[in-house]
């Protein structure tokens, strides 16, 4: 047997891939990371960074900065002015009072209830998903422990979990609030990266998913520079600008990764891919169990979000700006996507960073290649049309706005989360039922990306969970 230079190859230098790579490297493995994109992305990473990742990789000392603007969101109001929500609950209450005194009175209670539910998810997210089929006493004990933990949080939390998770975000918010502006701001997170509208079941879960790791009363995930910190950490080798896929030899055993369609093979006994599951197995598919392949092909990952960047010098009148004036606005935006069209008036959210504005546009459905320069122009015009009344200076900058619709994202159906976070695609159902523990049905092959539990929008949790499983399962003699 030939000795390979690497113990493990990680495909993809996104946050999850890098986290896995560093955990493996810390355990003494020789790790190579192969990344398709020649240059690192300049934008910050959105999502909760679990404290376990920060602590165990000692990221705080390497310059990790996690920021959350204050106010964490600003939403233009119909009659002029903005609804601004703050980290400070009382300050938010004051702001909400101007649109609805009744809603202001409920805000602290709502925030406390949601925070408690998010706590449950946080606990679920920093470990592999519970294996409900397991007969292993240790796993059963863990599941029982989880159950006990939830029940200790109180009767109301158990009821809320059962009742809220399958709900639509519209129903949840209508139960609490009356202000369209407030419901629009909150409802928007409920549909993030889903081809669903706020009235679709399961969007309340998606809302909570994005509340995970946030302080009470903040319903937008933080941003961090975690990817660049991880890239700067020593201990791993990163090769850029090369597309890699797991490959196997004639005997069906995993041999390593192949570079490009006809390129060289880099050998390694262990391959961990953070690619999206539907694209990750292209070269080894014929040797995988057809039922597994069918399940993989059935993963719903219908991209609906266009990402944009606008180079911007000078001050902005906002840090986070959300244009989703009501739940009905969001629902109507979704209607178009159901029939394969872009929203005429999309939900748009802006985030100002150093020298740039990051743009989230929803819904822009994947068109399977049927996208062209004219579509780009129309999309840009729609976005500017929605923003112009609130951010007049955007008009002059229209030509600088670079939007990437799902077709331009080099992901299966352009889905940034590698699979929608719907209730049938989370926990032990993610990425596919029966294969939620990061190990794939080919000896030595693992998944560690957003397509696995706990999914997109969380920085490094999947990567850390995967690494822990890998280290346990591939102990060296």
């Amino acid at each position: 047997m030939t000795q390979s230079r690497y113990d493990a190859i990680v495909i993809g230098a996104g946050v999850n891939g890098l986290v896995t790579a560093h955990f493996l490297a810390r355990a003494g493995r020789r790790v190579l990371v192969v990344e398709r994109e020649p240059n690192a992305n300049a934008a910050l990473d959105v999502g909760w960074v679990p404290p376990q990742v920060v602590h165990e990789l000692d990221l705080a000392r390497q310059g990790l900065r996690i920021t959350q603007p204050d106010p964490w969101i600003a939403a233009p109001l119909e009659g002029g002015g903005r609804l601004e929500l703050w980290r400070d609950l009382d300050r938010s209450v004051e702001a909400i009072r101007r649109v609805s005194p009744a809603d202001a009175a409920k805000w602290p209670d709502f925030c406390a209830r949601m925070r408690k539910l998010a706590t449950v998810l946080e606990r679920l997210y920093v470990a592999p998903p519970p294996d409900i089929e397991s007969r292993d006493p240790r796993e059963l004990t863990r599941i029982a422990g989880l159950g006990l933990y939830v029940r200790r949080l109180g009767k109301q939390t158990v009821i809320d979990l059962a009742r809220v998770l399958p709900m639509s975000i519209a129903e949840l918010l209508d139960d609490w609030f009356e202000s369209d502006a407030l419901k629009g701001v909150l409802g928007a997170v409920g549909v993030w990266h889903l081809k669903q509208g706020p009235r679709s079941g399961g969007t309340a879960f998606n809302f909570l998913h994005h509340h995970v790791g946030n302080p009470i009363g903040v319903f937008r995930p933080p941003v961090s520079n975690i990817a660049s910190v991880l890239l700067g950490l020593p201990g791993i080798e990163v090769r850029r600008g090369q597309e890699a896929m797991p490959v196997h030899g004639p005997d069906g055993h995993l041999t390593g990764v192949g570079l490009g369609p006809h390129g060289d093979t880099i050998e390694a006994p262990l391959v961990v891919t953070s690619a999206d599951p539907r694209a990750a197995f292209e070269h080894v598919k014929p040797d995988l169990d057809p039922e597994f392949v069918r399940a993989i092909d059935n993963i719903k990952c219908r991209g609906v979000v266009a990402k944009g960047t606008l180079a911007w010098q000078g001050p902005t009148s906002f840090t986070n700006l959300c244009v989703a004036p009501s739940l009905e606005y969001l629902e109507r935006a979704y209607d178009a996507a159901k029939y394969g069209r872009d929203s005429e008036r999309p939900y748009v959210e802006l985030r100002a960073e150093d020298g740039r504005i990051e743009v989230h546009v929803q819904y822009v459905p994947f068109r399977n290649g049927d996208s062209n320069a004219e579509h780009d122009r129309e999309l840009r015009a729609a976005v500017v049309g929605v923003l112009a009344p609130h951010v007049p200076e955007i008009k002059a900058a229209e030509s600088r706005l670079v939007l990437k619709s799902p077709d331009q994202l080099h992901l299966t159906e352009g889905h940034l989360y590698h699979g929608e976070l719907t209730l049938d695609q989370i926990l032990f159902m993610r990425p596919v039922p029966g294969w939620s523990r990061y190990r794939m049905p080919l000896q030595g092959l693992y998944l560690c990306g957003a397509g696995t539990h706990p999914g997109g929008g969380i920085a490094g949790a999947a990567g850390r969970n995967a690494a822990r499983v890998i280290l346990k399962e591939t102990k060296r003699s």
Partner: protein
Amino acid sequence: MRYDAIVIGGGHNGLVTAAYLARAGKKVLVLERRPRVGGAAVTEEIFPGFKFSMFSYVVSLLRPEIIRDLDLPRHGLHILPLESTVTPMENGDYLAAWADHDETRRELYRHSPRDAEAYDEYGRLMHFMAQAVKPILSMVPPDPTSFAPGDLAGLLKLGKHFRGLGGERLHALVKLMTMSSADFLDEWFETDVLKATKSASGIIGTFLGPRSPGTAYVLLHHYMGELDGVFRAWGFAKGGTGAVSEAIASAARAFGAEIRCDAPVSRVTARSGTATGVVLENGDELAADIVVSSLDPRRTFLQLLEPDQLPPEFVADIRRFKFRGSSGKVNLALDGLPSFTCMPGVGRQHRGAFSISPSLDYVEHAYDDAKYGEFSRRPYMDIVFPSMIDPGMAPPGKHVMSIFVQYAPYHLNGGWTDAKREAFGDAVVNTVECFAPGFKSHILHRQVLTPLDIERITGLSEGNIFAGELALHQLFFLRPAPGWAKFTTPVRGFYQSGSGTHPGGGIMGASGRLAALRILKDGGGR
């Protein structure tokens, strides 16, 4: 006169409760507001000589143990099978499912060989899943928030039951509980019209479109009937759906129960937290040890009781319980049968259902209208001709046509008026006319029922045919409210037994039976 138990509401669940209590030797009185028993399961001669199953029109979910325990065939229950479903398509073609399995396969093959292959496997899975869920229908839901030994044992039993299904089927169950019917069917089939027709059973009674998560469960809920009982299919009761209620009422009377019609109840009386009887609208007071309401949760708790008789958080939960009626009904008397373009003439197709669900987008568009407070301009419809199967429903040579329509939102923009009702009726017949030109000339009489009409006549809040939406967060231990899903109520001696309790809607009778068993277990009054 003192009764062991008074049952409020003579719908099928109230009657089932009464029959089981009487069977156990209790002295039972049923009080029905209308002149006839049945609630939403009634047969009425709306136009002279033309009898209609006015609201609920097909039977299949009725629990076999109830048919057996109450010996319903002896009391006149006779189910006639519904033989086929034909979906006319916009291009003039059709998709048909026939009673004969091979014929259905050949028909599917014509549309897609792949789907014909998948069809049997899909049928097997759904059959199995329905089997797997059935025990839950006959089970009192354990309360996961409770530490009582009974609840813990119930949860453990449930956990064991599900794990016993094995991985693949457990996953399928999770998918059915959480997905949209369109997504679920997408994993199996490619033919749009097939997916549209199948997904339609996932939207019935809900305020959701086929692409909304949660509808796959309703799909399964409706599948359960397809394997139950003797007939293993959807069917008509001979004499209309009212005959089901009459058979249960007859069984109840045979066990000694008294049934009083035209006897609306105004409220339930209670003394120091214990029910003592009821007061009728005419002022009469009746005493009983046990009072059971088979009305929906909103009427049971917010109308029959005063708010101060209930804990405030319970009242809040009941107020939050969603009804949002979304279905209407059009009953037509015809002087001849319509000929559908896709399958011209009159034939065996009229002995089955016509499903107006030509594509997923069609059904989804129908939902879009309702979402924004309008009735569907081109609605989804389930059409049957009961007189083709039971000639007694119409005069010789004439026919009755029953059209179940979705969506007709209870909360219509501007509210329902006579003019809106007729406009809704017009939208229905005009849409049918598109698929069966000339059909309108056969119409002798027309009855249009909006959700508001359903509410006014049957009492079902917001006209919801399931007495509360069958949404995931309103099922099992959450139906109708957390902590109160075991047929008891915060008032001692006052029980609930309607479809708004577990396991919910359809002419199933399971709620009524489980409630009766619970009452008997608690001592049943004496």
